[in-house]
């Protein structure tokens, strides 16, 4: 029997930052993750972390406005105000923990430019910012002696009397299932990129956290807001950081023209990601691309600069494409990268289920709205990771003893056994690929009623096959085969919410760009979509809407 005051699902930046906060408050905390913390997908964040440092002439309102404009006015402005005003301290604290940020001549932290912002306020470590911060938070976890259930896979949240009381999980190394009781659970399990194919996301980003919360009645908000990153490598979908453009790289079409001039004459390559991705897709669709790509050109930056400031990009380009960026431009295309939508929380990470919190990519506070600015995701994880940890500590003070219930363990055991006992059927990977390709096709950079209905139809087909897949590996130790089956169930939940949100929103806003309704409609759609699991409904989901919080910035036309 395991029990903790606070259990955090996920060992990436949001989870570890929350764990540090709970430990500091003196509560008993543990992290549970299906991978070792340093394998988390926070690693993959390359370019940097935004923070307006007010003592250096920046102002947090400036960052807040850029974020809100970037979100196409769908972000909740009260939440953005919290993030922007706490950003400076959050980043400086990371430095004091040991992060090796790049510095200026004066020995103080230096910045680079990033998309959607005129002020250079992105703090960075080469092109490995996420990895560098993750490893330092992991160092802190060792210092604090944090309990980590590493390579444990959560299959279910335990809800008693409408309150979250812990989880049921498999220890992958032994195959045994256990109950872990907790007075509060913080979901920090990352995004759902693998719902799409291709995606920049790690193979572990299967929307587990979103689905687990969705299944217990928490709404997933604005799930139609899928970020397509403008610079990903063809076929593999591997990410080439926005830092390249932040440092001055050009985007060129087949004729060698900097085509961003047409859509964003002021910001050029550093317009918001949705804007750049659409411009690229337009070039490609209208025959000005090169084999489905455009070119990312860094040659004018010079070899030394590239290797010093963008070393990891050069490594990826050489290793995966055999292209030396100092000599040749790199072919890139828009690729699925991030999900702005997620578990609806307030600014303290709290959901509508008492005892259940969420932070990081799986959560939607909402600070990214319809389009996230580059380098705001790392900021989101540390600011709201900390806040959810702090609030969970307050919450558990009012919670009495642990719940005694064990029946969830028994029912989960029999559910998984039934999965293992299925007769030989379809492969999990086949169904997953069909789902993910259908999602990219229907809910792409551009979408319309027909494409979205196509995605819905495809998903219905996928759902009809979910009872028919089988697990080949019947063993106990490190049975990832079983885990992939469970992950597919999580992904289908996420896909369902994405499609429902997309079909509901009858306007174009940020990443949700409909070629059949090209205008933003503030009168009717300055609203969040909220997807609830609903077995009664034909599509399995019930959609509601809620108002966007507007504090000081009235929506205006978005021009870059």
């Amino acid at each position, binding site marked *: 029997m395991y029990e903790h005051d606070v259990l955090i699902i996920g060992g990436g930046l949001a989870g570890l930052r929350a764990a540090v906060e709970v430990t500091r408050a003196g509560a008993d905390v543990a992290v549970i993750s299906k991978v070792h913390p340093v394998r988390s997908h926070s690693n993959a964040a390359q370019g940097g972390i935004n923070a307006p440092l007010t003592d250096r002439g920046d102002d947090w309102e400036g960052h807040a406005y850029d974020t809100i404009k970037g979100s196409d006015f769908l972000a909740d402005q009260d939440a953005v105000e919290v993030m922007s005003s706490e950003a400076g301290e959050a980043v400086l604290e990371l430095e004091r923990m*040991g992060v090796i940020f790049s510095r200026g001549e004066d020995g*103080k932290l230096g910045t680079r430019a990033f998309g959607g912002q005129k002020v250079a306020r992105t703090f960075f470590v080469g092109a490995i910012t996420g990895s560098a911060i993750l490893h330092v938070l992991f*160092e802190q976890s060792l210092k604090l002696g944090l309990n980590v259930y590493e390579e444990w896979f959560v299959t279910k949240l335990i809800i008693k009397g409408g309150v979250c009381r812990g989880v049921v999980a498999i220890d992958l190394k032994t195959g045994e299932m256990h109950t872990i009781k907790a007075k509060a659970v913080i979901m920090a399990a990352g995004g759902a990129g693998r719902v799409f194919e291709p995606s920049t996301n790690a193979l572990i980003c299967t929307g587990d956290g979103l689905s687990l919360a969705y299944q217990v009645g928490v709404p997933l908000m604005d799930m139609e807001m899928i970020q397509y990153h403008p610079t990903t490598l063809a076929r593999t979908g591997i990410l080439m950081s926005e830092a390249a453009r932040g440092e001055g790289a050009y985007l060129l079409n087949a004729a060698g023209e900097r085509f961003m001039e047409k859509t964003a004459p002021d910001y050029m390559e550093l317009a918001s990601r949705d804007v750049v991705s659409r411009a690229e897709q337009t070039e490609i669709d209208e025959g000005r691309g090169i084999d489905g790509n455009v070119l990312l050109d860094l040659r004018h930056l010079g070899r030394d600069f590239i290797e010093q400031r963008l070393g990891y990009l050069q490594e990826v380009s050489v*290793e995966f494409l055999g292209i030396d960026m100092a000599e040749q431009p790199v072919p890139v295309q828009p690729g699925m990268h991030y999900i702005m939508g997620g578990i609806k929380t307030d600014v303290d990470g709290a959901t509508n289920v008492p005892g259940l919190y969420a932070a990081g990519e799986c959560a939607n506070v909402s600070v990214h709205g319809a389009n996230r600015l580059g380098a705001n995701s790392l900021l989101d994880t540390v600011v709201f990771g900390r806040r959810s940890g702090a609030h969970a500590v307050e919450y558990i003070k009012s919670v009495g003893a642990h719940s005694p219930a064990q029946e969830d363990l028994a029912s989960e055991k029999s559910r998984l056994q039934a999965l293992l006992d299925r007769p030989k059927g379809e492969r999990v990977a086949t169904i997953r690929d069909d789902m993910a390709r259908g999602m990219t096709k229907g809910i792409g950079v551009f979408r319309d009623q027909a494409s979205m209905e196509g995605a819905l139809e495809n998903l219905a087909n996928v759902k009809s096959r979910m009872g028919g897949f089988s697990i*080949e590996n019947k063993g106990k130790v*490190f049975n*990832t085969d079983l885990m992939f089956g469970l992950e597919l169930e999580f992904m289908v939940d996420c896909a369902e919410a994405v499609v429902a949100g997309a079909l509901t929103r009858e306007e174009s806003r940020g990443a949700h760009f409909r070629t059949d309704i090209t205008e933003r409609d503030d009168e009717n759609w300055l609203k969040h979509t909220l997807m609830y699991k609903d077995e009664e409904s034909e599509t399995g989901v019930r959609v509601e809407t809620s108002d966007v919080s507007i504090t000081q910035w009235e929506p205006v036309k978005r021009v870059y």
Partner: protein
Amino acid sequence: MQVKLKVKRFDPADSGGKTWWQEYEVDVHPDSTVLDSLIEVREQADGTLAMRCACRASICGSCGMKVNGSAKLVCKTRVLDVAPNGEQLTIEPMGNQHVVRDLVISLDTFFNQINRVEPFLQPSFVPEKGEYTASNESMENLLTSMNCIMCGCCVSDCTVLEVDSNFIGPAALAKAWRFTEDPRDSKRDERLKALNDENGGMWDCTRCMKCVDVCPKGVAPMDRIMELREAAIEVGNTNTHGYHHTESFYKSVKKNGRLDETRLAIDSAGMFNIPRMLDLIPIGLAAMQKGKLPPLMPHKAEDHKKVKELYERVEGESK
């Protein structure tokens, strides 16, 4: 493109553990990596194959394994680079670490080593506001080690760990270097002293270069270990076998133009270290039996003067 793989399997559940080789052949895109091929196996041919992988972009460190006998991050190993003519690839779990199942090794060895170096910043003060002030050069210098993604390839192929599981290992030492060189850290001397520990510390590296060879991220752990040694000597941690060994090596080659192995053994142990001296006796006897005992009195190399000149030139240049 057809890829032929021979994979070392291990099932702990099979009557106390069974190991066997299994061959696969899969059809993948010509640009594919070894990881792509293994994923194809796992997803389309054999769902029982266990391995770790996540990011596919050489940043998460999950997919270290041995390809043709040498540790590699398989996500950044292109098939065409290791099997240009369609040769069969041999895939095994990493070495020097306990195998959990198939290609999955236990992470305990690696992280226990990391834990031994107190791998977190220990500053003497924390600024109340703002950040620490430090030069960009001193920070960028640390990136060599911060590039480490903890994949374990260096630990897998370390030739010292193969015979001495007590060695702290290349990754942990590279991690330690990251703190001894960090201007914000206040425990440099204490760290160097602790790493000087003769029981598995920095002097146990034999400079075989394996870790430099297999590191997929350019951390070059052995180079970091050599820098640690220099730093340790610099701060005066010279009362160690390791330092005596180095010093004896340096002197005897300078003097004789060749290594005086007898002297080296005695100097390294310390003339008055009776237990260690007694330890050396059986080694000496065994060497004698095989006719490998070095001469008790050193003889000079013919060109020993030239060697001395080389010493002087190099030392002159480095000044």
